[in-house]
């Protein structure tokens, strides 16, 4: 899911960087001081998640966890994901530094959308909470795959072929992230509800 150096064209990189900066600015403005520790915890989880590989048959993909980051943080997911991706790029050479803005958008836009679309379902019942978490995890990877395909298509690659390849490679990750996010959110609501945004508790 991390786009490497030298893949995307200049205009795509520039547009991605500008939009990522705008999203991060909004995120920083919206973060409340007492929420900062949650941002750090979730950014750290995101930072290490890409080290977990899912090997099913010929498919090898890694966890991303942008669903839970977005669901719990909303726009604050932008600075959290930006920081984690920057550190992944510097320390692990995952993704190119010039593609950082586009990589942030690919992972943060679905994250923020899952917050606004699925947060109202949290806390209604145990099943609904799990379902909201599952959908956040599953749909964030699906949307990120679509955005990744779109970014590559804007440069040179054929959209549908890339789309099918990316989505196929990430189907196991979508299911695993859905289940992990579902259980995590249900667990957090019970043991540490403070991490869940106030309006969903």
């Amino acid at each position, binding site marked *: *899911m*991390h*786009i*490497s*150096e*030298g*893949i995307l064209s200049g205009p795509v990189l520039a547009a991605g960087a500008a939009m990522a900066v705008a999203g991060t600015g909004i995120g*920083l403005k919206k*973060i*409340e*001081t007492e929420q*900062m*520790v949650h*941002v*750090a*915890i*979730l*950014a*750290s*989880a995101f*930072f*290490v*998640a*890409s*080290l*977990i*590989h899912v*090997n099913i048959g010929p498919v*090898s993909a*890694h966890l991303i966890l942008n669903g839970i980051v977005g669901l719990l943080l909303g726009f604050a997911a932008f*600075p959290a994901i930006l*920081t*984690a991706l920057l*550190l*992944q790029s510097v*320390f*692990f*050479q*995952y993704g190119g530094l010039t*593609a950082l803005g586009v990589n942030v958008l690919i992972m943060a836009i679905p994250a923020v959308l899952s917050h606004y679309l699925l947060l109202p379902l949290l806390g209604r019942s145990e099943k609904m909470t799990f379902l909201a978490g599952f959908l956040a995890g599953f749909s964030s990877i699906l949307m990120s795959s679509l955005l*990744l395909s779109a*970014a*590559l298509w804007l440069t040179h690659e054929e959209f549908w072929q*890339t789309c099918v*390849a*990316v989505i196929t*490679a990430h189907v196991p990750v979508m299911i695993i992230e859905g289940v992990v996010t579902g259980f995590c959110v249900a667990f*957090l609501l019970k*043991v*540490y509800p403070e*991490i869940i945004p106030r309006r969903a508790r």
Partner: protein
Amino acid sequence: MKRIFAIALCFLLLPGICLAHKVIVFAWVEQGQVHVEGSFGSKRMARNSAVTALDNQGRVVNQGRTNSKGGYTFPLPEVAGDLLIRLDAGTGHQATWTVPEAELKAADIKKAPNAAMEKKAALEKGPSWIRIALGIGIIFILAFVTARFKAKRDHSND
């Protein structure tokens, strides 16, 4: 506070196995042939990935695809300067390797030079725990600095 640490620990212990996820390409010259090897780490080979060899002017001198073992071999081209090998594993994954001019000229060598092998081994090595811990430390320091800045600003606004 204890609960925050417990939750943080749950998240951070999630990665039981740490494996690298990046495309790695390695090339060496042996008996008049350029051998290319692409992988996503030590044991996951980059199969059917596009390989492009370019001279120092950016001209394509050879093109092909890796086999089921992530390998691709082509005859040593006549180039002046270094040879750049680019491996495109698709879906945004790309890596490059430079075969220095000196290595190209010493085409009779039977195995990859030690320096190149060491560089390859370093690339294939998974992320160290020190780097992981350092990354997490930086995230928390940045969060602390941002929280302090915001608290100060909120205080001055009051």
